[in-house]
C-alpha cells in the first residue's frame, strides 16, 4: 500500500492563460507521454478549475494544487499519494519567485516579457521531478536577472515617448 519513499515528488508544473492556452508546461515523468495527451490533460484541468478559486483538486487520479492571478493559472501536479503540502510549497515558491521578479506584477503580459526568468526560476525550483529549492528568496537570488522587468519596460516606454514627440514635432 505504501509507495516507495522517493524524492520524486512533482509530476508536472503548468502555467495556462485565461483561455486555457499553455504558456509553460514541464512534465517530469511519463504520465502523459505525448503532446496530444498533455494538451488534453491541460484542457481538462483548466475546465475543472478556472471557475473556482479553491486551491486543490483531484483529477485523473492525480493531486492538482493551483492558484490563479489576473489572467494566469499556475498548477503543480503530483501523485494522489503525495503530501499535498509539499506540492503546495512548490506552487507557493514558484508564485512568490515570479512575483518578486515581476515586481508583484504577476500577469500574462509581464510574464511573456520575462519568459527567460520563468524558465530559469522553474529550473531552480524543480529538477527532474525533485524539489530543488522551496525558498523564493533563494530562487530569485540564483536566477539573478540583471535587468528586471521594470527596467526594460521603462526603456521601452522612454523610447516610445521620444518617438511620439519626434512625430509631433
Amino acid at each position: 500500500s505504501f509507495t516507495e519513499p522517493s524524492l520524486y515528488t512533482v509530476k508536472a508544473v503548468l502555467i495556462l492563460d485565461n483561455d486555457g492556452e499553455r504558456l509553460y508546461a514541464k512534465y517530469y515523468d511519463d504520465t502523459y507521454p505525448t503532446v496530444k495527451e498533455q494538451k488534453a490533460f491541460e484542457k481538462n484541468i483548466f475546465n475543472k478549475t478556472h471557475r473556482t478559486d479553491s486551491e486543490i483538486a483531484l483529477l485523473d487520479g492525480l493531486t492538482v494544487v493551483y492558484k490563479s492571478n489576473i489572467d494566469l493559472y499556475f498548477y503543480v501536479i503530483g501523485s494522489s499519494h503525495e503530501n499535498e503540502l509539499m506540492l503546495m510549497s512548490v506552487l507557493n515558491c514558484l508564485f512568490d519567485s515570479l512575483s518578486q521578479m515581476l515586481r508583484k506584477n504577476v500577469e500574462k503580459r509581464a510574464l511573456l516579457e520575462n519568459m527567460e526568468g520563468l524558465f530559469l526560476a522553474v529550473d531552480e525550483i524543480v529538477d527532474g521531478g525533485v524539489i530543488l529549492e522551496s525558498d523564493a528568496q533563494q530562487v530569485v537570488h540564483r536566477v539573478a536577472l540583471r535587468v528586471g522587468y521594470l527596467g526594460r519596460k521603462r526603456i521601452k516606454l522612454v523610447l516610445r515617448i521620444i518617438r511620439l514627440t519626434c512625430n509631433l514635432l
Partner: protein
Amino acid sequence: MIKKFDKKDEESGSGSNPFQHLEKSAVLQEARIFNETPINPRRCLHILTKIIYLLNQGEHFGTTEATEAFFAMTRLFQSNDQTLRRMCYLTIKEMANISEDVIIVTSSLTKDMTGKEDIYRGPAIRALCRITDTTMLQAIERYMKQAIVDKVPSVSSSALVSSLHMVKMSYDVVKRWVNEAQEAASSDNIMVQYHALGLLYHLRKNDRLAVTKMLNTFTKSGLKSPFAYCMLIRIASRLLEETDGGHDSPLFDFIEGCLRNKHEMVVYEAASAIVHLPNCRARELAPAVSVLQLFCSSPKAALRYAAVRTLNKVAMKHPSAVTACNLDLENLITDSNRSIATLAITTLLKTGSESSVDRLMKQISSFVSEISDEFKVVVVQAISALCQKYPRKHSVMMNFLSNMLRDDGGFEYKRAIVDCIIGFIEENPESKETGLAHLCEFIEDCEHTVLATRILHLLGKEGPRTPTPSKYIRFIFNRVILESEAVRAAAVSALAKFGAQNDDLLPSVLVLLQRCMMDSDDEVRDRATFYMNVLQQKQKALNAAYIFNGLTVSVPGLEKSLHQYTLEPSEKPFDMKSVPLATTPINELKTELTPIVTTKLPEKVAPSRQDIYQEQLSAIPEFKGLGPLFKSSDPVQLTEAETEYVVRCIKHTFTNHIVFQFDCTNTLNDQLLQKVIVQMEPSEAYEVVHYVPAANLPYNQPSSCYTLVRLPDEDPTAVSCTFSCTMKYLVRDCDPNTGEPDEDGYDDEYLLEDLEVTVADHIQKVLKPNFGAAWEEVGDDFEKEETFALASVKTLEEAINNIISFLGMQPCERTDKVPENKNSHVLLLAGVFRGGHDILVRSRLALADGVTMQVTVRSKDEIPVDVILASVG
C-alpha cells in the same frame, strides 16, 4: 498618460504575446546571428528564449535542425553575460535528447562547474549530468564528489539531485559517493539535508540493515529540514510495514513524535503514515485523528483537503475513531472547495447516524454536478456502503442514484452507479422493481456496451420473476432495433428468458425472436435461432439447461478438451462431463474505496487457479490417465509456522483418484534435502498407489512432491478419510555460506499433522442462476429427505455458514443471507458431485432452542444423494 499607451498596445493585440505566432523555421534562421562577432547577448538571449518556448509548446525539432542550432549555441559560451550563459545550460538540457553529439559541451560545463562563479556551478552540474553516460561519469567523478560536499548549498544540492538521477544508469559509480552524501546529510541547509537523505536511502534501500542503521542515526540526531522529516517518516513506515514491526517499535514512536513537529507538512505526513499502517488500532489512531481534526479548520484549503481525505480513509476501517470529528466535518460541508465538501459528506455518511442521511444526501445533490468524476465515484461508493448499513433508507438513495445516472459522466462513474443499483436490488427484494425501472430507463440512452449488456443480463434474470414481466419486453426489444451487435445479442438472450419463464408471454417472444433471426449479425441470428428452437419444444428441462443455467464448464478447459478431441478422432461423441468445471470466482471484497485510476479490462479470459493446476499435473507422467481435474482444494498447512520445514497440502480430486500435492520449503540454510516424499497412512479403505518425490529441496526454494491415492470402489459413500502423514527424505549437510553439500547424506523423517479428506473435496461449487428451474430439471427420481437437529447451533447464520463450509457447495439465489428477525429460512445449494452429476440441496431451517434442519437432496444419480445425507448425519 503612460497607462494609456499600454492599453492601446494591448487592444491592438500585436504586443500582447510576442511568442504567439512564432515560426520554427524563422527562429532557426534567426539563430544564425549566434555566429556573428561580437556576440550580441541581448538578441541571442531572446532567440534562445524563443527556441525553448517552442520546445515547451511541444513543437517537434528534427535531428539535423536541432543539432545545427545546438552547435551554433555552443559559441555563446564565449560571452560572459550571466543570463545568456544560464539559458545555454537550459538549452543543453532541453536538447539533450534531440540533438546529436551534445557531449561536445562537456569541457565547457566542467569548467563552469569547477569555476569561481557560484551562480554557474549548480546549473552547470545539472546540465552536465544530463548529457553524461557511465563512462564519462567516471571521468568527472572527482568533481562530483567535491561538489557534493561543497559549502555552497546550490552546488551541493545540484550534485546530490543529479547523482540521484544517475543512479538508474550508473548505480555502481554513484554508490561510491556514499561517504560524501553522508557528510552532506549533516549540512545546515535544509534542502541539502533532504537531498542527501534521499540519495542515501536510494543507494541503500535494498539493504534493510543499512536502512535501519541510517534511520537510527537520523531519528536520534534530529534534522532541520521538514522535507527530510517527511522522507524519514516514509522510510520508517515502509520499514515498519516490511518487518511487521509492532506499535511498540521505536520507529512507531518516532512517527508518533513527529505529530508534535512545528511544521504542518511533517505533522500531516506523520498522521497520514499512522493512518495507513496496517493493523492500526483505535488507540494508536487517536493522536493522528486529533491532529487531522485540527487541520479541518485550517484557513489553507490544501490542508483541509489533505485532512478530510485522510479522515475519509480512516472512516472506512474505523468509523468510530472519526466520530469525534463529526462537528468539524459538518462545518466543511459548505466549503467552497467542492472536493473538500464531498469528502466531508462521504466521511459523515460513514460515521453519522441514520437520521442524518436524508439531510446529507440533499446537501450532496445540490452540487454533485460541479465535482469531478473521481469524486462522484467516491460519493457513489459511500452511498453503496450506506445501503448496506441502513437498508430502510433505500428509497431515498435509489432516487438519488437514478438522478445521478441521468447526469453526464464517464464510464467509471456510470459503472459505479450501475454496480451500486444492482447490489441494491440483490440485497433488498422490495426495491427490485424500482431499481429495474431505473436501469431500463438508463439503457434507453447508454453509450457503454459493457453496461448495457450487463443490465440486459440482469433484466433477463430478474425481470421474468416480477409481478408484471411484460413491461420489460419493450425496453429489451428496443435494444434489438437500435444498438450494436454485442448489445443486440444480449437482448436476444434476455428475451428468451422471459419466454422460458412466462407461458403467456411465450407466443409474443417467439414472434420477436423470429424477427431477430433476420438480423445482420451472425451471433445475434445464431442466438435467436437457438433459443427459438429450444422454446418451441416447451420442455421445462430443456429451458432450465439451455436458457436459465448456462454452461458451467471452464472456458479454457473446454477449449483444450475440444482441441484434444479433434486430435484423436473417435466414434464416441464428445462428453461434456470430461471438461473441468469452472471454479466460481471468489468475490473480491471492495475495501479500497478511494477514487480509482481507470484500469484497462483484461482482454482474455485469464486461466483460473485450477486451470493452472490441471496444466502442471498433466505434465507429470504418473498422472496421465487420471482424466480431467475435478477440484483443487485450498492449501492446508501441515506444519506450524516457523518450523524447520514448512509443508502445505493441496488436494486435487479426480474422478476415481486424489492427488495430494505437498508444497515443501526447507528453512535450514545448512541442509539440502533430496528424494523428499510424504508417506501417507489412510484410516479407511483408500489405497496409496504412487509417490512422486521432489528430487531436491535446497534452502528456501520451495518444491513439490505428490502422493497418488485411489478412492475405494466397494463403498462409494465412504468419502471421508483421515491420513497420517510423514515426510521422508535424505539429508545432506552443507556449508551455510557457500551452499556446497557434503558427499554423504543420511535418511531422516519429519512428522506432519494429520490430513482430512471430507465430503467437500468431492463436490465442486456450481452457481445455478435460476435454482427453481434447475430443481425441476433434475427431477425427483432420486430425491431423499431427512430431518436433523443441530442442538449446538444458536443462530440461523451460524447454521448456514456451517452447512456451506461443510458441504463445499454454492449457495444460490442469495439464500446464504438471512433477512433480519426471521426464525426460519430456506437455503439452496448447488454443486456437481465427482463424476459429473449435478447435486442440489434444499435445506429448510427453523430456529427454536437450537436449529432444526430438513434437508432435501436431488440428483440424477443415487450415490451423491446418499453421500450427502450420510455425511450430514
